[in-house]
């Protein structure tokens, strides 16, 4: 496989937007093209990550986006893997460039959900799981993670206070991210007293429904050399795994097998261990998800991650900063954009452009993106050149 570089990445603010998913995707892509320092005509093909396009009565977004960027001839398809759409689209683009088929690809994730009422949005999110069996037996999307949380608490003695510490930490980080959806400092008590959504998860254990878009551009070494472009960040590993799309059929309810497989694949390609990471952006759709992610990635032993959060070991100035962007919890979760947005954070961190949330001397960063309850997982590792 050929060496592939991350040459540009940019995102819109996450939150409630008056723009359409189409507008948002255009804006993020424009900014990514600008900071990559290439011409739009250099882009040979694109993947769009979008989960709920039909909620805006718009499928087939790719060609519309390409036209808006002035490159209607460039082929573009939508990749949908629920909340892992962004990471999956990035992976597929990586495969295309690493194999030598294309030199330059654009990956754009976008989502617009704020025009939906809470019930409709809740129902759409439930569609990402095994809806006919789990959703139709009454599980909301938070309900699925609540069931995992209860299993984790039962198995390892994890407490609701420890889960709350994840939310507090991510909100602290999000305070330094001007593009974050929820820029608000919260306390453990705020989390514990927020309304219960699906016991033991409360409103403040959950990420918000956000609008937003994020875009990334990757290129081959040959293209970089031919155009005399500075190589800033290389992609060291790309891991992707499926897992049972039905939570209820799994042996272990407190672990995502797809995270374990995807991360081992990516780490293996990079030839590093998790100890070499300077920070990670992990998929914290709920507080319990960040705990499970850190354990499945191998950053902490099973049952130990929540203690590490409470001890501050995952804060921006801790031994392994987790979600310096604020994560899905504070930065927001525009479903299709999320996985690409994690890569935008890595781009900013590795180019030293993260302002007050800058991780000191960040050299290697990892992104971890999950679809639904782990039916899909994508893990990528990036290194500053």
């Amino acid at each position: 496989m050929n060496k592939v570089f991350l040459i540009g990445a940019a995102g819109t603010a996450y939150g409630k937007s008056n723009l359409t998913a189409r507008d948002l995707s255009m804006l993020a892509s424009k900014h990514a093209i600008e900071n990559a320092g290439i011409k739009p005509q250099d882009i040979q093909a694109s993947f769009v990550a979008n989960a709920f396009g039909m909620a805006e009565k718009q499928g087939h977004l790719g060609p519309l986006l390409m036209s808006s960027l002035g490159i209607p001839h460039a082929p573009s398809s939508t990749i949908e893997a629920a909340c892992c759409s962004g990471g999956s689209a990035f992976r597929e683009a990586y495969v295309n460039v690493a194999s030598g088929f294309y030199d330059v690809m654009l990956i754009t994730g976008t989502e617009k959900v704020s025009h939906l009422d809470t019930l409709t949005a809740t129902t759409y999110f439930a569609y990402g799981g095994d809806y006919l069996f789990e959703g139709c037996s009454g599980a909301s999307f938070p309900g699925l993670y609540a069931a995992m949380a209860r299993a984790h608490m039962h198995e390892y003695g994890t407490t609701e206070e420890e889960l709350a510490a994840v939310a507090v930490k991510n909100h602290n980080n999000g305070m330094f991210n001007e593009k974050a959806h929820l820029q608000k400092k919260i306390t453990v008590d705020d989390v514990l007293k927020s309304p219960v959504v699906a016991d033991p998860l409360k409103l403040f254990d959950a990420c918000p429904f956000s609008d937003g878009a994020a875009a990334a551009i990757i290129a081959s070494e040959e293209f970089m050399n031919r155009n005399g472009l500075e190589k800033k960040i290389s992609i060291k590993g790309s891991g992707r795994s499926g897992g049972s799309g039905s939570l209820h059929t799994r042996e272990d309810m407190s672990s995502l097998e797809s995270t374990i497989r995807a991360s081992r694949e990516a780490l293996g390609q990079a030839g590093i261990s998790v100890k070499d990471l300077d920070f990670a952006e992990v998929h914290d759709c709920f507080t319990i998800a960040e705990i499970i992610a850190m354990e499945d990635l191998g950053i902490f032993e099973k049952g130990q991650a929540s203690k590490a959060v409470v001890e501050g070991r995952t804060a921006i100035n801790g031994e392994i900063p987790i979600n310096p962007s604020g994560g899905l919890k504070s930065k927001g979760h525009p479903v299709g954009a999320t996985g690409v947005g994690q890569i935008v954070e890595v781009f900013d961190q590795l180019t030293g452009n993260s302002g007050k949330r800058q991780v000191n001397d960040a050299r290697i960063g990892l992104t971890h993106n999950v679809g639904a309850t782990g039916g899909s997982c994508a893990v990528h590792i990036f290194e500053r050149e």
Partner: protein
Amino acid sequence: MSDEALFVNDIIEATRDGIIKAYQCTECNEMGVSVQALCKQCGNNKLNIKEISNVGKVVTYTIQTVAPDPFVNEVPYAWVIVELEDKIRITGWIPFISSKEQLSIGQKVKLVKSYKPGMVFEKLSE
């Protein structure tokens, strides 16, 4: 159809009468209650469809206080994952459970019917 695959409606329609249909591999005897065409264990393409016990134990659960579309008027209730006596895991719900204290991991339950169109379990005494 019985040796072809286990389809969504085969499973859901049987649960209306409290019956659970499973597939069983004709080669390795692997069983499961899931939409299935090929055996998960050995890849065999011949599956028998059979009725299995509708009694099991709660593996994990949540109390839903905010629900998706068909369940809005049912809250609060428990959504459960159940391990049946044949060690197969399925999902369902238990109406009128409003607090976590009313249920526990390991609680014995039985499938009684389906409704809207989820699988309804009830608590059994040990």
